[in-house]
Structure formats: C-alpha cells, structure tokens
C-alpha cells in the first residue's frame, strides 16, 4: 500500500483504498459483462458480420476478464482456498484467451481495414457512374433535340422557314447566344450574312470568301472552333463583354439540283457552301463539348438536304407558274384569233351581200342601158362601166373565196356531172375572146376519159376557166391547146406528188399550152402567191387581180391534186398543168334526166332458176308461164313445206303467193333466211299478193322479203321487175 498525499480522510486510509478498489473492480466487472451483451445484441441485429467466431473469442476474453475482476472482489478480504483456486483458474483462462485473441487480431485487423478501403473505392466508383450517367442523359437529350430539329427542318419545304427553324432550334438546344448563317452571293466571291438568330434585321454584311478561316472551315466537314474575333464571328457590336463565348463554324453544302445523288452523299464535288456560325454565351465559361459539335455537324447535313429539297420544289413551282402563265396567254390569244376570224367572216359575209346587191344593180342596169340607143361615146362609157363592174364583181368573189379557202372553211360541193360537157362549156365561154384575139383553141379529150364523174363542178370549171383564161389573156399570137387525160403513175409529175389511182377514183390531168408571152423560169414560184403580178406594166392592162392562180391552186389542193407551170422562157409560151382527183360515177344517168326504162330486148334471163310457190293451181300455172316465156327455168311448189324442201342456192328468185289471209305465209320467208345465212347464196324473195295497201308492203319488208308484186302480173311488169330485182337486189316500187 502506497502512501498518498491526500487530505487526511475520515476513514482509515487502508480501508478507503480497499473500498475504491472494490468499487472499481465491481464496475469493471459490470462493464466487462455488459460489453459482450451489447455486442451480441447488435450483431444479432445486423445482418452481415463475417467474423462471428472472433466475436465469440472476444466475448470469451471479456467475460473472463470480467469474471476475474469479479472474483477479485472476494480477495480483498480473507478468502478461502476455493476462491483462490477459482481466481487462479479464471486468471489462467483469461490469460490464454487474451493471448489467443491478441494473436487473432493480428490477422483480423488488416482485413477489417481493407474492407474499409474497398468501401471507399466503391463509393468513388458510384460517384463516377453518377457523373457518367448524367453525361449520357445530356447526350440523349441532345440527340432528341437533333431529331426534333431535323424533323422541324425537313417538315417544311420553304427555304426561309428551314433556315430560320434551324437557327432557332439550334439556339434553343445548345443555349447559344448567337447563331448566324452566311450564304454565298451570286458571284460566289463573297459570303453574305443572310440569317441570324437574335437580330431581326441583320445588316447586309459581306465577307470575301477567300479568308483563311473560311477556307479552313470549308475544308472539312467537321465543325471547327474559330476565334471570336474573326470577321464571320463578329456578328454583334461588341458591348463591352470581357469574355466572348467560344465560336464554332461549320460548312453547309449547297447542292445543285443536278448533283443530288443519295449514294454519293456527302462526298460530292459541290463547290458551294454556306457557313453556319454558332456562338456560346459570353461570360459563361462554357466550352464546346464533343457531342455538341457532333450535333452541329449532323444538323448542318440535314439542313443541306432540306435546302436542296426546297430548291427543287421552288424550281418546279416556278416552272409550273410559268406554264400556267403561258397557257393563259395562249388561251387568250387563241380566243382573240377566233374572235378575229369570226368577225372577219361576218364582215366578209355582210360586205359580200351588201356589196353584191348594188353591184348587181349596176351590172343589170348597165346591160339594159347597153340595149338602148346610144351615141358612140355613150356606148363606150357604158361598156367601160360594165366592164369595170364585172371586174369588181369578180374581185369580190375572188376575195371572199380566197379568205374562205385560207382558213379552211371552204368545202367542196360534190356532185355528179358530165366532164365532157364541162370542157365544152368552158371553151364556149372563152371562144369569143379567143376569136377576137385570133387565137385558135383546140380541145383534146382522151378517149378513156370518163364521161360522168363525181366532183365539185363549179370549182373545177373555175379552175379550168382561170387557166385557159390566163392562156388567152397573156398570148398575143399562136394557138392554145387544152388537153384532158386520165393520168397514170408513170406520167411526169413533180417529184413531191405521188399519184395513186384507187378503185372508184381517178386523176384528171389538164394541160393548157399556149405560145404566148411565156414566163421567166425564176418567176414561176411567185405565180401562185396572192396578188403577185409578174407582167410588165404594159400587159397589166389586161386586168386581173392576181388572185386567180392563187385561188385555183387552193381549189386544186382541196381536190387532192397539184398544179404547176412549165415554161421554156420569156416569149416561148408556157404550159399550165394540173391534176385533180375525181370520182367515177357509177350511174350512167345525169341528175334531172328521167330514168330510162331498160330496153326490153336487152333483158335476158336465160336459164335463170326461179321457184314459184302458190297454193292456187291456176295462178301457179300462169306465173310459171310468165317466167318461162321470159326464159327462166321454173320450178313450182304448192306448199311452204315443199318450198323449203326444194329451195336451194341455185334458185335466184323465189316467188311466193301470200294472198291467203294470215301470217303463216310469211313464215316461209323467215325459214328461208334461216336456211341461207350468207346473203349472196340466198335467193331473192318476192311476194305475190292481191293487196295494194301499205301494211302488206310493210309486213313483207319486216319479214325480210326483197320485193312485192301485185297480182295479176303483166308480162312487161314481170320483165321489168326481174331486171330491177337482179340489178338492185331489192324492189319495193311495183305497187
């Protein structure tokens, strides 16, 4: 026991010390016992604790220590040998366990420490992943922005909208301070500031295209960081901001329409680029990130595509507008032309009529005047008046005809006429003048020239008259020959005219040869033009408007023909030749002449096979007698059944009596029609009836009969009827 320097206590010093030791040991024991309890409690609570047996060991160690201290409590006073034994056991155990624990902790503590470091490591990793995720999210968002931007840009085909939208969206996505687009000018030597984001009315800056910074940007398809002080980036007046935001520029290829090929995109050899400049906000210390640059590049590409689409659309819309304008103009012009033509025709028609009326009056009255008693001077005057008015009348006719010919409103009036007579008439008209001028005229008509033809008689006469008239007019001496023949393809014709004779048509060639003034070969082409005159003034006095040949040429062309003039030179005469197409008339009759009945002697029905069907024996015999007398070979039958049995394609005519009332007789006609399907094999069907009314005729027609005859038939009647029937295959007149 040590001596302490404390104040003299109330108790005896040794007892006090003992008491304090006693209390301390007690508390230590309590603590020692409670710690493992706490440990067990909390470990039980926690889910994971890898070192349980260490805990047990530690628990044991502590318990034993506690026990030791507890047992110590009994050693302060006199204690028995058992207590000392227990105490010793406890101390020994404690020593063992504590040594074991100490040894164990050497292994365990590094492990525990490493757990800690791993924990720290994981925490760092988690933080890093969080950061990265944040980054990815931003990227994804920008990607979304790009898609939306592209969609916006591509959803419109209007160029301005495209560009404006681009700038707006880019500005929004990337939170830009300023975004601008420089477009190349027409000359291609400068870049002009075309669109900006913030400024409403950008001043028309231009920069030359050959700046090094621009070349740098145009040289690569990537977005390039450029200095904020470069001319393209100086978009706003500097307003005292210290730190200008970083600027990026990218090229936007402007595609020409012809270069637009999807597969070559974007390695095209286009030379035109626009420049897009993007500025980050100043004073923000923001930097361009890689993903932002990529976004800018993508957008630039999309903008280029959208712009070319817009350009194509603009082109096609412009072309369409142009076409519409042209159409409208053409329509108006056409309508104007039509109105003009109509007005002219109306005018001509009216004027024609208005002019002809007084003209007729003048001509008629002058002719009348000519008949009266006149002095020679008066006669001369009247003749002049007459001549002039005739000329005027001809002129009017010519003009009206020509204008109608020109716009194709003139049509030929076809009819049948006698060609030979026509020529003779023309000659008769011309003869007086020719006789006065002592020019003999001869007419040669080819022997194979058809007599009756189909064509426009009046116009053909006009043509011949004009040509022959010209020949007479321009000849002072010599003879005039008019030749008309049927032209064959081997005859000489101008090389561009091919003569093709068809079955019912032929080409009439008329040659008018005169030995008069002749024509200079150089003037020949001009002859047929309107109003052109080739004669000298001396011969001009013979009159003529110069329209004659032009009109004749038009008429000849209408008749699908050709007209030309050959001359060997001035003073050597000339030959006018024209071909026209005329139809050959089938009928050997002229209109107006009554029909000539066929000559009885000529009708020949020898061997013509006919069939007579009549129930009445007497009339059967009579009809047979008639036909036999005419030379036919007659078979008679007395019933329709027999008729059907006997009738064959050899019979050319079937006469059937339909006197019996009722429709049964007509059935035979239907049956015969059925039997002979081909028309040329079917015999002609003629009904013999005593009725004269229209209903019988109609009934016969409706049943397919070819003719009706009234009984009793006379010989002449039958003869005529048969010949008519065989010629025309139909007869419904003999009533």
């Amino acid at each position, binding site marked *: 026991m040590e001596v302490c320097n404390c104040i003299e206590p109330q108790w005896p010093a040794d007892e006090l010390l003992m008491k304090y030791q006693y209390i301390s040991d007690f508390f230590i024991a309590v603590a020692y016992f409670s710690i493992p309890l706490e440990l067990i409690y909390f470990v039980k609570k926690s889910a994971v604790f890898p070192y349980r047996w260490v805990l047990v060991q530690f628990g044991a160690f502590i318990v034993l220590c506690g026990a030791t201290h507890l047992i110590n409590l009994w050693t302060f006073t006199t204690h028995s040998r058992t207590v000392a034994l227990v105490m010793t056991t406890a101390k020994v155990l404690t020593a063992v366990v504590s040594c074991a624990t100490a040894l164990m902790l050497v292994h365990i503590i590094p492990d525990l420490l490493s757990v800690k470091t791993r924990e720290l490591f994981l925490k760092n990793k988690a933080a890093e992943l969080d950061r990265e995720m944040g980054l990815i999210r931003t990227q994804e968002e920008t990607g979304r922005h790009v898609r939306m931007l592209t969609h916006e840009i591509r959803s419109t085909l209007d160029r301005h909208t495209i560009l404006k939208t681009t700038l707006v969206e880019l500005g929004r996505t990337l939170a830009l301070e300023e975004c601008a687009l420089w477009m190349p000018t027409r000359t291609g030597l400068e870049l002009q500031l075309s669109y900006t984001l913030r400024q409403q009315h950008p001043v028309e800056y231009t920069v030359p295209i050959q700046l090094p910074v621009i070349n740098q940007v145009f040289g690569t398809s990537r977005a390039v960081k450029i200095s904020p002080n470069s001319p393209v980036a100086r978009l706003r007046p500097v307003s005292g901001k210290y730190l200008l935001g970083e600027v990026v520029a990218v090229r936007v290829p402007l595609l020409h329409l012809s270069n637009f090929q999807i597969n070559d995109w974007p390695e095209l050899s286009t030379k035109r680029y626009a420049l897009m400049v993007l500025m980050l906000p100043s004073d923000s210390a923001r930097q361009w990130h890689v993903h932002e640059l990529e976004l800018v590049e993508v957008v630039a590409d999309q903008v280029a595509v959208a712009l070319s689409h817009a350009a194509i659309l603009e082109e096609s819309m412009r072309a369409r507008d142009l076409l519409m304008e042209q159409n409208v103009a053409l329509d108006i012009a056409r309508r104007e032309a039509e109105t003009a033509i109509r007005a002219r025709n109306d005018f001509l028609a009216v004027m024609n009529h208005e002019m002809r009326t007084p003209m007729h009056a003048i001509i008629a009255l002058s002719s009348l005047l000519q008949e009266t008693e006149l002095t020679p001077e008066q006669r001369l005057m009247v003749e002049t008046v007459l001549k002039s008015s005739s000329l005027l009348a001809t002129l009017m006719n010519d003009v009206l005809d020509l204008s109608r010919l020109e716009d194709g409103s003139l049509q030929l009036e076809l009819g049948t006429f006698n060609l030979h007579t026509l020529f003779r008439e023309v000659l008769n008209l011309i003869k007086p003048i020719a006789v006065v001028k002592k020019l003999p005229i001869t007419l040669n008509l080819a022997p194979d020239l058809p007599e009756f033809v189909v064509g426009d008689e009046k116009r053909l006469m006009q043509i011949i008259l004009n040509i022959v008239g010209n020949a007479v007019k321009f000849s002072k001496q010599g003879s005039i020959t008019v030749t008309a023949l049927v032209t064959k393809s081997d005859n000489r014709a101008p090389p561009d005219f091919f003569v093709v004779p068809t079955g019912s048509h032929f080409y009439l060639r008329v040659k008018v040869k005169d030995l008069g003034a002749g024509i200079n070969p150089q003037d020949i082409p001009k002859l047929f033009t309107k109003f052109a005159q080739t004669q000298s003034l001396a011969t001009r006095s013979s009159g003529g408007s110069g329209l004659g040949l032009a009109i004749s040429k038009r008429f000849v062309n209408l008749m699908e023909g050709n007209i030309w003039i050959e001359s060997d030179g001035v003073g050597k005469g000339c030959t006018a030749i024209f071909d026209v197409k005329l139809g050959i008339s089938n009928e050997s009759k002229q209109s107006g002449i009554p029909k000539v009945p066929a000559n009885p002697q000529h009708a020949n029905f020898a061997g013509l096979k006919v069939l007579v069907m009549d129930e009445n*024996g007497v*009339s059967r*015999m009579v009809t047979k007698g008639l036909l036999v007398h005419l030379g036919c070979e007659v078979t008679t039958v007395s019933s329709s059944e027999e008729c059907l049995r006997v009738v064959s394609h050899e019979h050319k005519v079937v006469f059937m009596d339909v006197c*019996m009332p009722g429709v049964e007789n007509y059935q035979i006609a239907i049956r015969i029609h059925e039997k002979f399907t081909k028309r040329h094999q079917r015999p002609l069907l003629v009904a013999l009836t005593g009725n004269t009314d229209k209903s019988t005729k109609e009934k016969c027609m409706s049943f397919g009969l070819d003719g009706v005859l009234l*009984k*009793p038939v006379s010989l002449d009647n039958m003869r005529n009827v048969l010949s008519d029937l065989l010629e025309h295959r139909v007869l419904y007149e003999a009533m």
Partner: protein
Amino acid sequence: MNTVVVAQLQRQFQEYLVSLYQQGFLDNQFTELRKLQDEGTPDFVAEVVSLFFDDCSKLINSMSRSLGRPESVDFKQVDSGVHQLKGSSSSVGARRVKNVCISFKECCDVQNREGCLRCLQQVDYEYKMLKTKLEDLFNLEQQILQAGGTIPQININ
C-alpha cells in the same frame, strides 16, 4: 290454103274475142295469158283455162257441201274456197267470175248463208257460161290452124 277462108275465120275470131272483152267475160289478164303462148307452148292458154274450169267445179262442189246444212256452215272453209276462186279467176282474166267472187266474199264475211248460196249459184252459172264461150273460141282457133292460118294477135285497149 284458102286465104279467104283463113281471113274470114280470123275476122270471126277477132270479133268474137273482142265481144268477149266487151261483154266483160274477159279482161286484160287474158291478153297477158295469150302473150305467153308461143311456139314453145302452143297450148298454154288452153291448158290454163281447162285447169281453171276444173278447179272451179271442184271448189263449187266443196262449197255447196259446206253451205248445204243450214245449222253447221263452215264459213271458214267457204271463205278459203272463195279466196281460191277469186285468185284463180283473176289469174286467167275471168272478169265476171272474179266480180261474183268479190260479192261472194262479202256475204261470207258477214256469214250470210242465203247470200252465199245465191253467190254460189251465180258463180256456177258464170263459169259454165265462160267455159262454153271459151270452148267456142278455141274451136275457132283450131279451125284457123287447120286452115293453115295463124292466130292473130289482137290488141285490146
């Protein structure tokens, strides 16, 4: 050949024929029939005419049978008979017969038995009369031919 006789006979023939026309026994159709007679068919007219008379008698018999019983007269049959008769008579030019047939048809249409009987009687009378006349005509023709002459072509207008 006795030309005088021939000429006389021919004149007789001509007068007789003309009288037949004038009395209305024959009409134009008979002329036509005569035209059809030539060297190839010398008896054409006679054949036709005799056929006609046979036809007549047959038809008249059948019609009189139909009209015989008053209570059951088959007017249809009578009508068809009249029709045939009319056709035949107009084919040969028997004018009077034809005219009777026309009135006969009218009676038949109104189913007048009495009228029909009357007409039938008349038809019978007329055809027999014509038959006699034509027989005389043909006899004259034969006489001419036997006398060596030719039958004159007579134009009746």
